[in-house]
Structures are given as structure tokens and as C-alpha cells.
């Protein structure tokens, strides 16, 4: 039997089948795969989604009993997170003497937060605090690999981009937000380039574009497969170049918003994670750019998300009265790594399929068009495994193959090293050469499709509260397409900064800071009969060994955790 380095012997027969069917599949791809393997109709999509997508399972949702969305059904884990107590009691903090009194407070230091801070400054805000839980740039923004969509080819247009977005989102998106997203994409590409982002270009300077799932044109701009890292490190550097205007507070997550006596948002309470010290920030405008919820491990799935992706901003905004939308859908990325164990759940960029990589089952058969929208592609993988056509690892995990060697057969040797250096390195660390052998994949929890509802000016229904990026809802409807999250945090992060700065000029806050919404919230919980020890935002997930925790002073609670329990009762 032929051996396959990096893989255990039990997986070799299937790898051999993949190798056997590869020449034929390469041939089909050369003639245009779309001529042999049609994308699904809307009916076929609906069928596979309703039967296999995790969102459609009976226990996926539950009703929320408190707050602005009361009576609606949301993702079950989100309901648990929201129906929790605040981290502080109003009498615990002295609000009469704020540590900072600024024009704009930005909560969250990823791509959206950085854009917001930069553009608030450009728009004339004199004092900006950017508060973040870990370091600036420690965010999902840093991790996106594949690219950013922008209609920068002559035969493409913002309107075609619009149609792709809204179809991919199951026609549930807010149209005015989609129009903004598609229309400002080329500007963002230029803005980032002028900051020094090294977009992949050809020798004439034309931006290289690749197809992505659910797109009808080549529209994916990239910077090798470190696209997010390249953008994020440049934005971070730019934020740090303006210490006179932007005060950066790292390791200082917001744990509660503040309001004035009329209920308008007026800043936030931050908490230093090392010392537990409270920092009171009074701000004329407050921007939430805290990202998504991957670290909630919804339905037990592993996640591609950053350690800090615990939906903190969602909790803060909801408690102060901001409406959420589309919080009944969760994006599972079709290609999370399954093997080796150490990379379980890690993101394998959609660019692998954009470059021609093919999903095949244990017999080496192509079973789905490789570039369906993410939810459809993911559901198809789950279906294939449910049919028994997946491949099992020694620890009992199941997945399908993502055949990467096809890429070099199609585009020549060296393509993977040039286009997918991060992926090549990731697997090389564990002895697998993705130029020669495929990767085993299964859907992994990836993105919060919905969030805090915003309008084109990134305003919420609560005065002085703005939201940009993954924390917001309405842009992507029920499903986001590849390359639109990077675009989203740039477009709406920037807008949040601009409109927050404009709002700050109006000085719409009263003198006195309050936590009256927390009192109201606690009352509402009580009236709804919710008895729980949970507190939120949770700030960090907890991966400590449960057996070892039995020997600890505190009980294990996935929503509270040990390190932070010192600050609760």
C-alpha cells in the first residue's frame, strides 16, 4: 500500500482513492467544472439546509423572555448568554468622577474598532478612547485569510455585488446596508492601499481577483493568504501613529455601558483584566466593535474564532435596550480542519476552493459544487458524512477531503506556496504537505450573521450608540458570503467612526452618569422568573480541564469561569 506522510495508516486507502480519481477531476476542472456539476437551485439549497444545517435542528433556537427582542426565537446559547446578570451592581462603582471624558469611546480593537478610531479622528473628534479586551489587533479580523470582496473588474459592478450578497443572505438583508457595503468596497480597497496594504496585484497594478462561494464574478482581493493579518497590522500601526488623539487601553474590556438620566448611552465601565480595576469612561458617542460569538461553541462545534469572540458587545447593547436581528442563524464555515487533532476546528480558507481545490468523499468522488454559499456547502458536507461517505480519524472524528493538490495540477507547481503560505505552513508543522495530500475538513463555527441592528449611519435604536462589524446585524441577512466580513468591518467600522464623531459634536448627553438600565434589567429578569447564577459578558471562554477544576475552590461554570469569579459575589 502507498503511504501518505502525516496521516495514520487507517486513512491511507481513502487517500489512495482520492489520488486515483484526481486526474479525471482535474480534466473536468480544466473544461470548467460548472459544465459538469451545476450549482444547486434555490429548492435544492432549501432541502439540504433544512435537513442538515445545524440552525435548522429543533433545539437550535429558543425564546428570549427579556429585553427588546422579548418573545422572539434566537440561537439557544445566545439566549442563555443574554438572560444573565450584569457583572457589577450599580452601587459598586463611583460614577461621579470619570477617569476619561471623551468625544468617542470605541469598544473593541479589531478591524472595525481601528477603522472607527481612525475615521472619528479624521472627522474631527479630538479625544478618542479605544478600549480592547486583549491587545489591539487580537481579533477575528487578524485571522481572515481568503480576502475582501470589491467589484474592481470592468465586467463587474456594485449592483452585481449587491445581488450576490442579498441572494447569499436569503433575501433577508437590509437592502440599504447592502447597497452601502457594495458601493464603498472599491473606495476601501483604495484607502487601505494608500495606508500601505500590499494587495496582490499583477505587473500592471491591476488588483488580482478570485472567485468565492456565492459570487458571480471574480471579486476577491487578497494579500497572499494573510489578507486579514495584512490589513489588521497596517490599521493597528495607523492607530498607534496618533497617540495625541487616540488613547489605546488594552486588556480593558467594557463590562457595562453607562447612560445619562434619559437613558441615552454615555460611555462605559471598563475593567482591567489583570487587576480588576474599574475604569469609568464618559463619552458623547459610544461605538461597539466587539465582533462575534464563536467562542460560545454553539451546539458544541469547534470554532475558527479568536479567543476573545464571546459576544460581549451584544450583551452590553441588549441590556441597554438595543434591538438585535437575524440572531437565529449561525455561520458554519464548511472547511474547518479535522486532522490532525491539534488543528481541530481551525479555518481552512475558502481560497483553497477559489483556486480550484475540490471537496471529495471517502471514495474520491466530487459530491457538491465547490463554491456554493457557505451554509449550503457546509450542509452538504454534513449530509455526505451522514450518508456514511465521510472519512473517520483515529479519534473518531469525521470529515470529507478537500483536495488541494488539484490546485497545482491546474495552475502549476509553486501556486500553493505563493497563494497559500499560511495553510502550507500550518499543515507542514504536523508533517502534512498539502501540495501532495488533501486536508480533512468538516464545518466549524465561524461567524455571527446577525447582531445589533444598525442603519446606514451605524446608529442603533438607542441614542449615542453605534455599532460596526460582526457585532452588527442586517448587513448579511441570514448568511454571509466569503470576503464580505473583511469588507463589512472596514466599511461600517469607518462609518461608525464618522457618524460617532458627528454625533459627538451635538453633545447629546446629560451631566450625570447612571447604571439605571442595570437596575431595570435585574427587575425584568426577576419578573420573567429567570433564576440563574450566570453573569455576562463572559469575556473569556474556559478550557481548563474539568477534572482538575474539581480540586479548585470554585465550581466549574462555562459561562463564568474561575479566573473571573473573584469579582462576583
Amino acid at each position, binding site marked *: 500500500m502507498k503511504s501518505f506522510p502525516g496521516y495514520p495508516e487507517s486513512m491511507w486507502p481513502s487517500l489512495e482513492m482520492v489520488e486515483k480519481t484526481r486526474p479525471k477531476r482535474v480534466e473536468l476542472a480544466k473544461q470548467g467544472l460548472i459544465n459538469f456539476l451545476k450549482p444547486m437551485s434555490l429548492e435544492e439549497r432549501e432541502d439540504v439546509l433544512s435537513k442538515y444545517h445545524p440552525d435548522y435542528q429543533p433545539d437550535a433556537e429558543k425564546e428570549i423572555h427579556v429585553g427588546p427582542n422579548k418573545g422572539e426565537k434566537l440561537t439557544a446559547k445566545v439566549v442563555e448568554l443574554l438572560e444573565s446578570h450584569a457583572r457589577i451592581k450599580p452601587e459598586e462603582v463611583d460614577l461621579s468622577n470619570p477617569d476619561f471624558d471623551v468625544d468617542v469611546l470605541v469598544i473593541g480593537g479589531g478591524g472595525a474598532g481601528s477603522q472607527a478610531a481612525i475615521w472619528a479622528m479624521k472627522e474631527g473628534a479630538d479625544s478618542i478612547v479605544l478600549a480592547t479586551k486583549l491587545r489591539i489587533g487580537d481579533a477575528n479580523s487578524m*485571522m481572515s485569510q481568503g480576502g475582501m470582496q470589491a467589484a474592481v473588474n470592468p465586467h463587474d459592478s456594485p449592483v452585481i455585488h449587491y445581488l450576490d450578497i442579498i441572494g447569499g443572505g436569503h433575501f433577508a438583508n437590509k437592502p440599504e446596508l447592502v447597497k452601502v457595503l457594495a458601493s464603498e468596497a472599491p473606495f476601501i480597497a483604495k484607502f487601505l492601499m494608500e495606508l500601505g496594504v*500590499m494587495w496582490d496585484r499583477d505587473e500592471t497594478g491591476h488588483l488580482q481577483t478570485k472567485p468565492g462561494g456565492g459570487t458571480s464574478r471574480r471579486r476577491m482581493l487578497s494579500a497572499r493568504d494573510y489578507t486579514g493579518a495584512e490589513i489588521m497590522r497596517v490599521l493597528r500601526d495607523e492607530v498607534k501613529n496618533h497617540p495625541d488623539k487616540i488613547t489605546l487601553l488594552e486588556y480593558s474590556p467594557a463590562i457595562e455601558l453607562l447612560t445619562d438620566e434619559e437613558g441615552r448611552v454615555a460611555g462605559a465601565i471598563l475593567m482591567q483584566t489583570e487587576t480588576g480595576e474599574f475604569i469609568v469612561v464618559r463619552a458623547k458617542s459610544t461605538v461597539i466593535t466587539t465582533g462575534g460569538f464563536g467562542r460560545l461553541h454553539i451546539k458544541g462545534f469547534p470554532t475558527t474564532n479568536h479567543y476573545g469572540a464571546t459576544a460581549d458587545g451584544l450583551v452590553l447593547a441588549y441590556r441597554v435596550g438595543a434591538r438585535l436581528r437575524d440572531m437565529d442563524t449561525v455561520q458554519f464555515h464548511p472547511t474547518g480542519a479535522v486532522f490532525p487533532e491539534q488543528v481541530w476546528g481551525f479555518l481552512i480558507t475558502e481560497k483553497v476552493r477559489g483556486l480550484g481545490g475540490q471537496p471529495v468523499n471517502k471514495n474520491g468522488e466530487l459530491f457538491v459544487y465547490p463554491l456554493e454559499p457557505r451554509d449550503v456547502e457546509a450542509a452538504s458536507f454534513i449530509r455526505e458524512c451522514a450518508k456514511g461517505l465521510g472519512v473517520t480519524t483515529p479519534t473518531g472524528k469525521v470529515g470529507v477531503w478537500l483536495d488541494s493538490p488539484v490546485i497545482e495540477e491546474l495552475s502549476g507547481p509553486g501556486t500553493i506556496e505563493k497563494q497559500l503560505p499560511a495553510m502550507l505552513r500550518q499543515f507542514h508543522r504536523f508533517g502534512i504537505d498539502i501540495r501532495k495530500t488533501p486536508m480533512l475538513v468538516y464545518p466549524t463555527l465561524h461567524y455571527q450573521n446577525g447582531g445589533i441592528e444598525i442603519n446606514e449611519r451605524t446608529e442603533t435604536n438607542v441614542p449615542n450608540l453605534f455599532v460596526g462589524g460582526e457585532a452588527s446585524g442586517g448587513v448579511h441577512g441570514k448568511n454571509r458570503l466569503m470576503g464580505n466580513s473583511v469588507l463589512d468591518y472596514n466599511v461600517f467600522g469607518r462609518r461608525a467612526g464618522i457618524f460617532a464623531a458627528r454625533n459627538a459634536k451635538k453633545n447629546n448627553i446629560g451631566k450625570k452618569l447612571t447604571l439605571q438600565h442595570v437596575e431595570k434589567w435585574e427587575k425584568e429578569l426577576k419578573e420573567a422568573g429567570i433564576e440563574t447564577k450566570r453573569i455576562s459578558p463572559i469575556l473569556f471562554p474556559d478550557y481548563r480541564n474539568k477534572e482538575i477544576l474539581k480540586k479548585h475552590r470554585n465550581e466549574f461554570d462555562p459561562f463564568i469561569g474561575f479566573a473571573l469569579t473573584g469579582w462576583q459575589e
Partner: protein
Amino acid sequence: MAEKEVLNEEEKEPQAKMIPVFIMGQKYEVPEGSTILNAIEYAGYQLKKGVGCREGFCGACATVYRLPGDYKLRGGLACQTVVQPGMYLTQIPFTPAQKAIYDIDEVKPDISTFQKFYPEVFRCLGCNACTKVCPQELKVMDYIQAIMRGDIELAADLSFDCIMCGLCTMRCPAEMAQYNIALLARRLYGKYMMPKPEFVYKRIEEIEQGKYEKEFEEIMSLSKEELEKRYTERDINFDIT
């Protein structure tokens, strides 16, 4: 499989072999095959620093370690490095480093910018300690030497996969912050030296002049059924780049 509870990410088979490691001076037994990050968590830490994306992209979890009987100080990312028996390690969640403040619109894409903002780059001793410690296996010393010669393009290319973990800086006897210096090189290259995408400017102008407003108005006025039909029948064309 995925349906099962995964609150502990690194949930091992019960029979996983345990090995001893020394985490910041203290001995723990952890499952063989764990990454350093998973081992630290398994031991009972809930990290508030020194942890980030957990997939090798953010550089937050730089760690240095030695192995028993080996004089060599090694570096790695905690999320990407597998523990070995007897490994003794400490995390470096923060690197004290020089970061120059500059206006990217005012700097020149040549050697004078580095002379001005990072003169320490010219103190490079050529010892290669940076390259040896780089968890991304980048040729760090080579890109620093390229900057010394004024070859910004080469420096940008060689440093592109840098995740700014800071390990090179901690090892450098010339006391420079290679990762910040390289970032300046890449920004100069991306902004000033790569060829300009002319069509992007044209497209932005079209949008600003309202060329697509009519089409938007039309498509946004469609009923859901009409929009669905338009979507399903849309032409998919990946031929032109």
C-alpha cells in the same frame, strides 16, 4: 462528533499518555500531543494574556522553552508548538519594543526613512539569532540586511508572513524591533512602490458620479419573487480577471 460537548477544546481520549512539563517553573502532567497552549489550560490556567487567535495568525502567544539536557533556548507559538516531555517554558505575552510614530503620507520609500525612524537597524551584527528563533521560519536577518541596503521590495517580500510575535526582538543583540521595522518597509512598498491599480480609481469615480444609482433604484424596487428570479438567473462568469 461535532455534536458532542467541546467546552474543553483539547478533550483527549481517556487513555492519552501523560507527560511532565514545567509551566513557568511549576511541574504539571499534561496529555501527550497537546499544544503548549492546550497544556497550560489543561493544567488549570484561564489565560487573560498570552493568548489570541489560537491558529498561528496573531502572534499573541510567543513562548520560550528549553528541553532537558539541551543548552539551546527555543522559541515558538504556544498554539502551534506541541509539548515534549520535560519541556520547561515561559510565555512572553508582551515585548517591550520601539515603535516609531510617523505620517505615512510624508515619508519617503527609501533608506533615509529608516535612518531617521529606526537608526538601530544599522547596528545589526549579522548573528542570525532572529532568523533562528522565528516561529514563521522567516529569514529575519536577511530582510534586515535588505533594509540596510535600501532594498525595500525584498524586505517587504521576505517579511510578509510576519505575525509580529516579538521573539526576534527579544533575542536581538543589536536591540532592534525587527517586526516594527519590517512593517514600515511593507507599508512603504504597498503604498509607494507597487504599481497602481488604475481601474479602481475609475470605478470609484463612476460610483461617486452616481453611475449605478439608477440600477440600484431598479433592483431595490423589485419584489422578493422578482429578486429571487433575478438572482437565480444571474450570469456567473469567472473567465475575465
